[in-house]
Each structure stands twice: as structure tokens, then as C-alpha cells.
């Protein structure tokens, strides 16, 4: 009787151990909880949305790596030999403000916005990968010593940044293209990306 009890106990225990082993989680099958998953995907999505804008011509044309502003969707060098100059605004007597005003000119097609100028040379993005752009954006030694809070403000409130969604018409009267993400979605994306720690996905 005693032996029979032990036998039954061992049999049940063995079945239990086998079932437990069969159903134990494996590392390669690990899945995030639904809320964790959505948080990370949101951040990643925000990063990509933000980068879709930063790498668009409307932004990139004034973030050159060769001190020469670019024009148009084909990103050709600015006509007439215009270049950065000493203060990012061209040369002594012929500078950005010789032609560009604080708003777009619908008659001439010359674009304009407040403090029209090139981004500082340290913020040259042309030819960089998204991750490299993000690194420059976050690095205080290249971003004008801006904190995350200051970067968010710059990217979501600066008139020259937001000009990308109101670029006016070109010299032929044709509407300039705008970034593939709406202004409101871009602002949200910037805020979400920074709120989630400004993680660069490829790192």
C-alpha cells in the first residue's frame, strides 16, 4: 500500500515536471507585453517620422556639408555661387537678405522666413545616415549647446524650421514640395522621440 502510494506520487510528479519543461519559456520565443511593445514601436516610429522630415529637401537643403546651400528637389547648388560666408548668411554685401525676406515672395518665387540662413556648419547633415544625423542633433558640441528641451522647442516652434510646411511657390509659380509627414505629426514625433529617451534605433 505504501509502495503503491509512492508510485502514484512519483508518476504524477514526473508528469508535472515533463509538462513544466515542455511549457517553459524559451529566450528565442520571448515577446514583449503588449503595452511595452507599443511603446517601443511608437518611439521607433516617431524616430522614423522625424527623420523623414529632417532628410527631406526642405530641411536638408540648408544643412549642407560643403558650405554651399542647395536649391530645389534635385538639391542643386545654390545659383550664383552663394555660400555660407562667415556668419552662415552669405557674404559682406551680398548675403541671404539681399534676396530672401522674412516671408515667401509670391511674385518672385523667392522663399523667405524669419532669420533665413544656413544651419551652422556643425549641423551639416548632407550625406549622413539617419543615425549620424541624430547623433549630431543630440551632441551639444555640434547642436549649438542645446538641451533636449531646447531642441524640442527649436524643432517644433522655430519659424524657419516650420517654414518647411509653408515653402511657397518657386520662380515658375509652382508649389514647392513639403515633407512627407504633416507638421502636427512631426511635432508629435519629436516630442515622443525625446520623451522616450531620444534613442537612436540602430545603436
Amino acid at each position, binding site marked *: 500500500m505504501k509502495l503503491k502510494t509512492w508510485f502514484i506520487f512519483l508518476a504524477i510528479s514526473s508528469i508535472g515536471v515533463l509538462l513544466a519543461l515542455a511549457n517553459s519559456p524559451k529566450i528565442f520565443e520571448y515577446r514583449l507585453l503588449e503595452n511595452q511593445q507599443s511603446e517601443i514601436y511608437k518611439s521607433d516610429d516617431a524616430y522614423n517620422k522625424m527623420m523623414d522630415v529632417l532628410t527631406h529637401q526642405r530641411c536638408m537643403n540648408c544643412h549642407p556639408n560643403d558650405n554651399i546651400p542647395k536649391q530645389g528637389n534635385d538639391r542643386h547648388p545654390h*545659383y*550664383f*555661387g*552663394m*555660400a555660407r*560666408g562667415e556668419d552662415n548668411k552669405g*557674404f*559682406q*554685401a*551680398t548675403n541671404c*537678405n*539681399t*534676396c530672401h*525676406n*522674412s516671408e515667401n*515672395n*509670391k*511674385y*518672385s*518665387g*523667392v522663399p523667405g522666413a524669419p532669420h533665413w540662413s544656413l544651419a551652422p556648419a556643425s549641423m551639416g547633415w548632407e550625406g549622413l545616415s539617419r543615425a549620424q544625423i541624430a547623433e549630431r542633433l543630440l551632441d551639444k558640441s555640434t547642436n549649438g549647446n542645446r538641451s533636449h528641451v531646447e531642441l524640442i522647442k527649436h524643432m517644433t516652434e522655430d519659424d524657419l524650421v516650420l517654414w518647411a510646411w509653408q515653402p511657397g511657390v518657386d*520662380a515658375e509659380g509652382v508649389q514647392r514640395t513639403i515633407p512627407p509627414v504633416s507638421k502636427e505629426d512631426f511635432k508629435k514625433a519629436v516630442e515622443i522621440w525625446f520623451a522616450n529617451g531620444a534613442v537612436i534605433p540602430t545603436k
Partner: protein
Amino acid sequence: MEISLIVNGVLKTVHIEDENTPLLWVIRDILDLKGTKFGCGKSACGACTLHVDDEAVRSCSYPVKFADGKRITTIEGLGDRENPHPVQQAWVEEIVPQCGYCQPGFMMATAALLKKVPKPTDEDIDKNIINVCRCGTYYRMRKAIHKAAEIQTEKDSNESNMV
């Protein structure tokens, strides 16, 4: 809209319906100063260059509303036959113009350059004088710009000796 401009030292008030009207047309058609020329209308050729508060601007792309209360200098106000500006004097001495159409813009751009860079190098000229001349008078213009700088320096020196 009423706009007040100090044009070549004289206060002018103009009434204009569209405040975005290019300054060029106010200068030419309302104030009847025809020296400033229309070239391309898109801020590319520089024929319309004049000064707003001493800065060279392309007036075909400069809404008149931005000029309200400012000092405007056109080629007519740069100097005259009796008392030419050094740039005008140098232009005559070097016989720069061919057809002449673009020259007022070049002279205004040069006058603005000499205020900032009294003795411009060839590189300064290449960077700052980027107007377009279809007659190709660039070689003579370069000589005239250097000569204008010399005349200006001499003039300044004489004036300071008189003081």
C-alpha cells in the same frame, strides 16, 4: 496702405493697394525713377539692385511694405554729373557699359560692397558682385571696381586731411 520712404534723401509717401508690390515698381512707376531696371523679376540677375538702409537688395523681390520708414538709395541718388560717386566715376573712366541695361544694378551692388569692404580683392568681388551682364562686361567691371576703391580711398584721405 500708406508707405513712407526716404528716397535719395527726400521723404516720399505713396498709397498702394497691394503692400506686397515689389519696391521696384513703386520706384519706377509711382516715383518715376527709371534708373533701376527690371531684369528677371525673380531676384536672379540683379538689374534691380538698390539700397535699403545702405544694404543692397533686389527690389524686384522686395515687398514695398518692408521698406516703410526706411532710406532708399537708387542709382539717381548715388551721385550726379557734377559730383559722381567713386563707382560712377570709375565706371566712366573704364568705359564699362556696353548696352548699359544692367549697369545701374552692378554699380549699386559695388557701392554697397565698398562700404563693407573698402579695398576688395578679386575674391571679394567674385563673392559679392554676382549680378548678370549679358554683354559680358565683367572684365572691365572688375577693373572699375578696383579703380572705384582707389578713388574712394583717395577721396576719404583728402576729406580727412581737410578736417
